[in-house]
């Protein structure tokens, strides 16, 4: 993937497909590291699936036998000297608290670090495609943060779909403004 924001889009699609009603995308940056954590309340994975999930020959898709989403994220993290850790609770064992957490650590100063790229476009694409599920996005850097919670927007919009063109544009501009004023 050319940008980390594309990996974020791809991995978050898995959360939605796993039936998550809320997915949190957290990007936390320090001077040297970028830590990406995607936390969902979807069905979760059994330990057998979890053990094999970064193997490209494991996939949930039915059109092909190869799944590259998590292997590509793992590659992007490991080539900077970082790592990916996935934990999951399957609904069969954890009916009240199921879901998956994908955490990826990147060392930003490594020459093979892939830039974050257009994360705003990733967020608006997710909302455009999945207007009925909620996303919480937080990007923090050295004590400052940009945040968007679709639950708040949904409450204000009272039934107007989140993927209405005007709403998507508002979200895009809102995030652009926050980035230019908070995370300069």
């Amino acid at each position, binding site marked *: *993937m050319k940008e980390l924001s*594309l990996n974020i*889009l*791809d991995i978050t*699609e898995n959360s939605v*497909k796993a039936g998550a009603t809320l997915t949190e995308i957290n990007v936390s940056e320090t001077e040297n590291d970028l830590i990406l954590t995607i936390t969902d309340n979807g069905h979760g994975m059994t330990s057998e699936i979890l053990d094999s999930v970064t193997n490209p020959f494991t996939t949930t*898709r039915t*059109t*092909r036998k190869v*799944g*590259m*989403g998590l292997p*590509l994220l793992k590659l992007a993290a490991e080539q900077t000297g970082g790592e990916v850790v996935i934990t999951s609770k399957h609904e069969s064992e954890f009916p009240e608290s199921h879901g998956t957490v994908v955490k990826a650590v990147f060392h930003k100063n490594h020459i093979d670090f892939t830039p974050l790229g*257009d994360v705003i*476009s*990733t967020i*608006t*694409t997710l909302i*455009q*495609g999945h207007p009925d599920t909620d996303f919480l996005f937080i990007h923090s850097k050295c004590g400052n943060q940009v945040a968007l919670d679709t639950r*708040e*927007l949904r409450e*204000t*919009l*009272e*039934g*107007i*779909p989140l993927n*209405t*063109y*005007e*709403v*998507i544009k*508002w979200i895009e*501009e*809102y995030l652009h*403004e*926050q980035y230019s*004023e908070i995370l300069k």
Partner: protein
Amino acid sequence: MKSLAELQAIKEKMKDKVVLREGTNATRVVVGMATCGIAAGARPVLSTFVEEVNALGLVDTVTVSQTGCIGLCQYEPIVEIFEAGKEKVTYVKVDADKAKRIANEHLKGGKVVVEYTIGANQ
């Protein structure tokens, strides 16, 4: 700074329109957004369709949506267009410029851009 009050205003403006829109969208533009599609450049293709459908005033008749892997990863980004009473049209290796042309000529003008279809690229 943008505020939720602005969103409130959008809601008031959209309230009546949305009721009208429900069920009237006869044409569907579907963009493949699995790993293969995203890696090949589907994200800007999707946003171009969203922008163009709005700019061309087609919001009431065309919906833009996303799907998973279509099974032809080597042809991604793939865009399928479904129109009532017509055969599905599959566009392959689409980029933002091609998306713009497809929106103008096919969605607005009703004429399939044959050179971008899978039939012309096999």
